[in-house]
């Protein structure tokens, strides 16, 4: 998953077209027998040539080739010339990209934007009525708005809880006489980070300071290791050969640094106005996919919590975050691909049932208690969910 910064509200959010999914159905051939919903666009420095200015309602594919010498973009705009129904950007010279978009009957504009400036080279575009195109669901926009609001609230809530627990954790750790409490709180506080990890680690400056594992640090190149896992090693030094415990002063330095960075993270997540983070449907869906990727890449291998072995707490938290993000767009998905929604709901439940087998008291068994057989079963369950989940973004954004 790409770790790009989320857009602030100032940026244009692409809103999926308000239409139910319609696969290219038979009977929609153009006069030459080709697929009337597959269009080509040639974008040059001064022209925007479409293979046709009319197409039947449904899922349209615009294959956009840049024949000019500047980077170009292609837009399908609503009849008002403002609403972006779909866009494809960053098409380098001589390259081709596809825009797949669900368009109900109506009047539109197409626009090529060579050089990525101005309002582009525009032309009217008509989507005609067809019998097989399903009725537009007027509630889709509501579903989208609701999903975006809910997800923002979820991320903000988790971030706030992370901050509170990090404060407590840092206090315990710094005091020097409450290591047991610190150890107990460590996986619990980190759950809040792991639930929103794809958002948290999108801040490329904060992530390496707070969540770097020892193996990620290039000590030979002079990098310094700070954050959660630095403190983790100090609290669980049993497996660390020849480890020298941190002094009281060093403890304070690492603890304060963690808290400052967590405060900064929370500030950015809670920001309002022009600095507020927004989560598009694509961001939310990608967030769900990304959290499962975190499970596959780090937690299931026991590499995340190399000293405390509390990887299953992180595992559960990643799954929590992925499920919440999925459930946020589930309503929308049901209008577009009900079968996928059903499959995902089932696979999330199956993974949870498996994870529940490893609960121990308030938390989980340690990673070191897992057998090869256990990790194989977990991997299978993660694969079974991740594969269909990887289709989520394309499904909800079409």
């Amino acid at each position, binding site marked *: *998953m*790409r770790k*790009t910064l989320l857009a602030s509200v100032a940026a244009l959010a692409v809103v999926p077209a308000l239409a139910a999914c319609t696969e290219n159905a038979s009977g929609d051939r153009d006069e030459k027998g080709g697929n009337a919903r597959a269009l080509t666009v040639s974008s040059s420095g001064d022209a925007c040539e479409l293979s046709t200015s009319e197409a039947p309602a449904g899922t349209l594919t615009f294959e956009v080739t*840049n024949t000019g010498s500047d*980077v170009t*973009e292609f837009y399908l705009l609503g009849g008002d010339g403002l609403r972006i129904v779909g866009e494809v*950007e*960053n098409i*380098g*010279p*001589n*390259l081709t990209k596809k825009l797949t978009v669900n368009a109900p009957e109506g009047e539109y504009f197409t626009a090529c934007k060579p050089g*990525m400036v101005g309002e582009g080279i525009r032309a009217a575009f008509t989507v005609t009525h067809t019998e097989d195109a399903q009725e537009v669901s007027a509630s889709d926009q509501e579903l989208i708005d609701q999903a975006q609001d809910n997800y923002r609230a979820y991320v903000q809530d988790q971030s706030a809880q992370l901050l509170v627990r990090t404060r407590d954790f840092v206090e315990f750790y710094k005091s020097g006489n409450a290591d047991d409490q610190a150890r107990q709180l460590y996986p619990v506080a980190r759950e809040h980070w792991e639930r929103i990890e794809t958002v948290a680690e999108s801040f490329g400056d904060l992530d390496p300071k707070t969540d770097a594992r020892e*193996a*990620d*640090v*290039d000590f*030979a*190149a002079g*990098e310094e290791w700070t954050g959660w896992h630095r403190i983790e090693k100090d609290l669980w030094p049993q497996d660390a050969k020849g480890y020298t415990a941190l002094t009281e002063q060093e403890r304070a330095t690492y603890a304060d640094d963690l808290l400052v960075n967590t405060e900064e993270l929370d500030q950015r997540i809670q920001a309002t106005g022009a600095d507020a983070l927004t989560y598009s449907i694509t961001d939310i869906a990608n967030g769900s*996919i990304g959290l499962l*990727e975190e499970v*596959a*890449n780090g937690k*299931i291998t026991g590499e995340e919590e190399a000293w405390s072995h509390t990887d299953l707490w992180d595992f559960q938290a990643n799954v929590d975050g992925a499920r919440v993000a999925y459930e946020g767009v589930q309503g929308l998905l049901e209008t577009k691909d009900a079968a996928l929604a059903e499959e995902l709901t089932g696979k999330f439940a199956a993974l949870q049932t498996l994870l529940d087998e490893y609960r121990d008291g308030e938390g989980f068994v340690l990673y070191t208690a897992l057998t*090869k057989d256990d*990790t*194989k079963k977990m*991997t*299978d369950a993660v*694969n079974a969910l*991740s*594969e269909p*989940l*990887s289709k989520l*973004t*394309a499904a909800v954004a079409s």
Partner: protein
Amino acid sequence: MGAAAGVAGAFAAGRLSAPDTVKSGAPVASYPFHGARQSGIVTPAQDRLHFVALDVTTDDRDQLVALLKAWTDAAARMTTGRSAGPVGAVDGAGNAPPDDTGEALDLPPSRLTITFGFGPGLFTDADGNDRFGIAERRPDALERLPRFSGDVLEPARSDGDLCIQACADDPQVAVHAIRNLVRIGFGTTTVRWSQLGFGRTSTTSTSQSTPRNLFGFKDGTANVKAEEAAALDTHVWVGADDDPRAAWLAGGSYLVTRRINMTIEVWDRQSLEAQEQFVGRTKGTGAPLSGGEEFTDPDFAMAGSAGPIIPVDAHVRVVHPEVNEGVRILRRGYNFVDGSNDVGGLDAGLFFIAYLRDPRTHFIPLQRAMSSSDALMEYLRFTGQALFAVPPGTGEGEYVGQALFEA
């Protein structure tokens, strides 16, 4: 790239016949073992690899030299399609094991090349001993590579006192070569690790098309190629004055190997657009995202809608000569699949092989840049690495590395 074809002569001199790509029914090419340079470096990359790293178990210099002589003889025989030993697989005494193992008996040479390299441990062992009286000739740059961030190196897949790279278009021919050379070495050397590669991931000649790695992308488009004589002198061959202690290495090269596991299953779930952003090229043609065709130079300054159109962490940018002080390397890696791991994932990736003039300028900074800022790192796990000094070619009547032991 596009270097003049005329300069190819110097490096093509060792070749017996023309075709670079052998298809069934086509005339078979072979390369002689002896020559000014070792073959298997600028030789048009063959399709298959068997690579072995060995440790020397003796302290006896004469025994080591005797082995290098025996290896030279066997390599010279096998690269021309003959048996490893002078008798052969079926022509010897019935009451003795044959001096060739026989599995290549009916096979053509398949463009087999055998390339030898010397690791740091040959000069000074782990306890600091100069076992063979060559410590003072150890090249300055021949030091154990540092660990890079994100590395999960396994000792059993790293380092080695010696290495042998066997490349051929038929995997059985490459395996046959390593198997017989290892056999000859028993009592003097022990195998530390070995690696099979089933598909080349680089082109080392402009006559070859760019192959794909297991991410599905064309790889090594910007490789130094055999036809670029000046670039080879600047970036691949050790110069005569590079290291006064190691004059024996002049005209040779350094060989870096990195076993790069790919997290295949996770990669496969990335959207096409994300994959292309990680790499910085299109998956179809291999054109840079700044446009054009495969061999169009990437335009790193070209703006996209949010930041440069080739992202700052795209692989093509991070390792490109333009942002690495002009440094280029000759890559000669192979795709590998070593079955599946214990949770059912493919144990697969790219066995990175690069030949370069000096690891301190041509590899360590590049790998450091990649480890710290390459978007692909999320999908890579480095499980082994090694560095070897590759002596220049072996003249007729000489043995490999002779200048190191007898100059």
